[in-house]
Structure formats: C-alpha cells, structure tokens
C-alpha cells in the first residue's frame, strides 16, 4: 500500500506478529524446562510453543515481503 510513505501497514503487522511470536515461543520453551506451579487447562499441549512459532514465521514472512527496501523498489518500478 502506498499510503503511509515508505513503511507499509503490512510491514508494521509483520513486526507486531513476529515480536509477539518470539516472546510467546520463548515463554513456552521456558515453561517446558521450568513448569509453572499452577498449570492452565490443557497445559500438556504446550500451546505457547507451536502458536508462538506459527506467529513468528507469519511475522517474518510479512516483514520481509514488505520491508522498506522492497517497498521502495516496488514503488520505483511502478513509477
């Protein structure tokens, strides 16, 4: 999207998902080695690990595909 200048909304979205995914994945791995005293329901599924990894990958795809450098190149090609 052109609006917003060099930084696309999809780039911001990628950063947001990627950072959150990395933090959740890290929290899940920490829980694996140091289980909490009060486990949530279905703790055994280790949702933070697979959900965090999924968000991290999604965030990376968005932020790389819509990085400022690529956006500039795309806008340069269109003009």
């Amino acid at each position: 999207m052109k609006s917003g200048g060099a930084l696309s909304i999809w780039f911001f979205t990628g950063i947001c998902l990627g950072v959150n995914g990395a933090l959740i994945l890290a929290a899940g791995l920490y829980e694996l080695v140091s289980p909490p005293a009060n486990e949530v329901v279905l703790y055994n599924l280790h949702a933070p690990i697979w959900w965090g990894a999924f968000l991290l990958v999604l965030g990376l795809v968005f932020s790389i595909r819509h990085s400022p450098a690529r956006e500039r190149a795309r806008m340069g090609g269109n003009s």
Partner: protein
Amino acid sequence: MNPALLLFASSRLVHLSPIDLVIIIFYFALVLGIGFYLKGQANTGEDFFMAGREMTAWVAGLAFLSANLGSLELMGWAGNSYKYGILAAHWYWIGAIPAMLFLALVMMPFYYVCKTHSVPGYLKLRFGTGAQAISSISFAFMTVLMSGINMYAMAVVMKVVLGWNMHFSIWVSAGTVAIYVALGGLRSAIFNEVLQFFLIWAGALLIPILGLIDAGGWHGLQVRIMQNLAEQGAANPGSYTHLWSTLGSFSTNPMGINWVGIVFGLGAVISMGYWTTDFLVIQRVLSAKDLRSAELAPIIGAAFKMCVPFIVILPGLLGLALLRDPQGHLLRLVPANLAWSPAGQAQGLHGYDEVLPLMLARYCGPGLLGLGITALIAGFMSGMAGNVSAFTTVWTYDIYGTLINKNASDEFKVKMGRWVTVIGVIVSIFTAYIAAGAPSIMDYVQALFSFFIAPLFGTVILGMLWKRATAAGGWSGLLAGTLSSIGMYTWVKIDPSAVRYVALSMDAQDQAQNMYRALWCCLICIIVTVVVSLMTKAKSDYELKDVVLGLTPIPKQEHVSWLHSPVFWGVVVAIIFVILQIIFW
C-alpha cells in the same frame, strides 16, 4: 486509603507475568509510534478525514471489518452467546452478510460516485439540511455513546483479568486513543485497525481451538451444554445450539424471538441500516482508491465476518459447557448489574460479558495471556478509535461546516479535527459510566441502533431508490422514526407489560424487543416519508442527478478477469453463507 492502592484493590482472575507486560507495553509503543509516524501525512482535510482516498481493497476491507470488531464485539457477543446460545450468531450471518453484499454491489458504486464525506453529507445532497441536521446530530450522539461502551468494555477486561480499578482503566486507555487518532486522523485509525485485526485473531483463536479439544469436539460441546442447562432447570436446553429450528415461536428459544423478528427486524432493518448507512463503517470503504476496491472491500470484510463467530460465539458456548468455580461446581454467569453489585461482588459472581476473559484465563499461561489481553485491548482501541474518527468527521463537515461556519478553511478543519478528537474522547469517558448500568453490553448497543440506525436506513434507501421522495418527507420521516423508537423504548421501561405490543410476546428478551422496535420505527419512517412526500412538491430529475439511483450514471469499470470481479466473490460469499445456515440449522 491511599488512592494509589485503590487502583489495585479489587480481586483479579490472573496475575500477569513480566513477559505478558512486555507484550502489552510493546503494543502500546507500536500504536503510538504509528500515530507519530503518520502525523506528517495528515495535513489536508482529505488526508485527515478520508485517509487521502488511496487505500487498497484489502486495507479498506480489513479496516471496514475491524472498525466493527472492537472489544465490544468480542466480549459483548461472547456474553450474548452465553446468554442466548448460538442464536447470537445470527448477528454475524443473516445480520451482516446479506447487507454487506448489498452495500458492495448496489450501494457502494452510488456512494462512491457522490464523493460524499459522510452519510449525513449524502442526506444533505438528497433532502437538504433538515434531514442532514437530524442525522448528523443523532449520529454524533450515538458515536460518543458507542465510544464510551468500548471504553467500558476495556475497563471490564482490566478489572476482571488484571484487577485494575475501572475508573483508572477508563481514563488511561482513553488518553492513548486520543493521542494516536489526533495525530494521524483516519489514516492512523485505519493502520491500527488492520494491525488489530491480526492481533485479535492471533490472541483469540486459541480459545475455541483448545476449548473444542477440551469439550470433545462440537458433539461433546452440545452434550455438555444440554447436561448443564438441564441441571439448572433451564427451559429448552437443546435450543442453545440451533440457529433456525427453534424460531417457530417466541417461547421455544432463549431469546424469546421468532423468525419474523430475526429475518425482518435484524436482517432487513437493523443489519441493512447498520452496514449500509452507519458512517463509522462506510467511512473506511470511502477511503478506497477506486470504485472496484470500494466494491471489493465490503466483500472481503464479509468473508472474514462469517468466520468471527468462531472466536466470539464459540467461546461463549464453551463457557456454558465448561466453566467451573474453584470448587469444581458449575459456574453460572449473571447479568452485569447483579454481578457488580456489592452483594454480587461479595459472592464472587461474574457477569455474562466476562465469559471471554474467563475462558482466556482457563487456557492461557504466560505469553499467551499477554497476547490475549493485548487482543482485547486492540479490539477496544479499534472500536473506540473508529467511533471517534467518524464523530470527528461528522462534527467537522456536517455540524460545524454546515450549520455553524460554512466558510471554514481546509487548514482550520484539520486543526478542528484534532481538537474534536480529544473532546470526543472526553465526552465518551462520561458515557462509559452510562454503559455500566446496562445488564448486558450488546443489549444496550442494539437499543442505540434501533433508535438511530433503523429509521436512518428507511430515509436513505427511499432517498436513493425513489425519486418522488421530497426534502420535507425525508426530514419528517427520519424524525418520526427516531422519536417513535425512543418512545417505544420508554413505554416498555415505564410499563413492562407493553412488551406484548412492541415485541408481540411477553417472552421477548431485550434483543427481541430491539429487533421489533427497529422494524416498527423503520416502517413508521417509510410511511411518514411516503405520505409527506406525496403531499409536497418533488424535485425535477435534473436536480436529482447523482443522488438517486437510476438518474445517476455509474462509471463503466475496466474489464477484469472473474478472479478480480466483485460479483464473483460476492456470489462465493453468499453460497458459503447459505451452507453455514444449513449446517447449524
């Protein structure tokens, strides 16, 4: 007691870990950063109020949906599905999809050709300043009330999950929204709405996934709901998981409504009124860069809207099936006014609207909990910023620019837009306290819609489709519809037995009353408009060019492949919609 201690005095569902706080703080930093980044790109009225009219179909479509997907939606409809069962999904399906498709394929080309800044702006073109004044003032009133409801929903999240004092949450969260909307205008609101769309799905999607595993799938969920409700002696426990089969009469479903109320009150009036005339959502589509994007945007929104019950309605049903207190007894949620009374607090009661945070606390540990809370905060931001930005536009163009100072410069309007954003937020704070008195958030919202949106739909649709409608007809019809709706509401409040006349049954619950009230007031609006129009002089065809369908040439669009055609995707969405009705019949 020290005021600082009061902020953290109430009980809490969960304790946030440091990683949760990092996730929440990162979100606030990001949205404020986006506001500051976009400040330099909101210098003209077109930029500040219409985001430069350069959004792609995807951005406009996701913002269109997100503006409606606030905390209010997430918590209010989860609470309503706990209260009314799967009937609440009607507000996502028949109460949204047909209207969104109608907007995309019939009304959007017309709005786009008019190049209006707002829906009241269209009424000015069609019916003159009388209808515009009623519409813009009632819309401004409704948006600040809605904004207050979003704030209230946010405060509920903070209170239930984090134990924060509600007054503190309302004031702090309002300040953040005021800053980022005042800086970047509609563009900032749209950027954050797209961001929030992804956060809401990322934060809320785990609840139904884990909940269904926990309940033993859809069948297991149905069985548990039946058992729990039968144990409590609820009438018609089987009706909580059926969409249509229990709507044959008022008394066989938990909402006390029949199919006439759902199909005509909700599907034909409330839904059509909201999705085709509520400027809050229309403003997002009007920001699209061209007509094809403006047509595709509501269809993209409709496709995702059909999926929202998975993260909103399903958690409410899961709450009915699975929630237990710490002793292992079935947890029964109650109306908010009861839950938050001193007696309710002493007994540890929870309100309907707390079902989503309760489910979040059930399944989400550190990290995921932070993301879930952030999703709710994001939803709040979305709902509130959407209302505030729409309020700002209508105030600046349709109230100040039309009724007070017709010669205001563009630069002055932008400056006023920034200040009105802040003022709108302050007024919203006070309306948040009104919302706290409603038994369920969504009942209160639907009451507001029936006051203002339902008659507006009657006026707009007649104005667009019937060239004989006159300015006097439009003005008087809109006024009669709005006053009759408020009158019926007041009548039932004073004399509860009047519900048998307004909603045709003493079984009718709040939502059923809202649907019938909307239906009657829309009919009153249409009848008054038609009668008064036939008694007054109509405008010539030449004067109605560009404001009445049939007298307005729609520009020919470039030929595109079927994969890029709005009609093709509209048909796909319609087919999936029908299939969903059959599956959950």
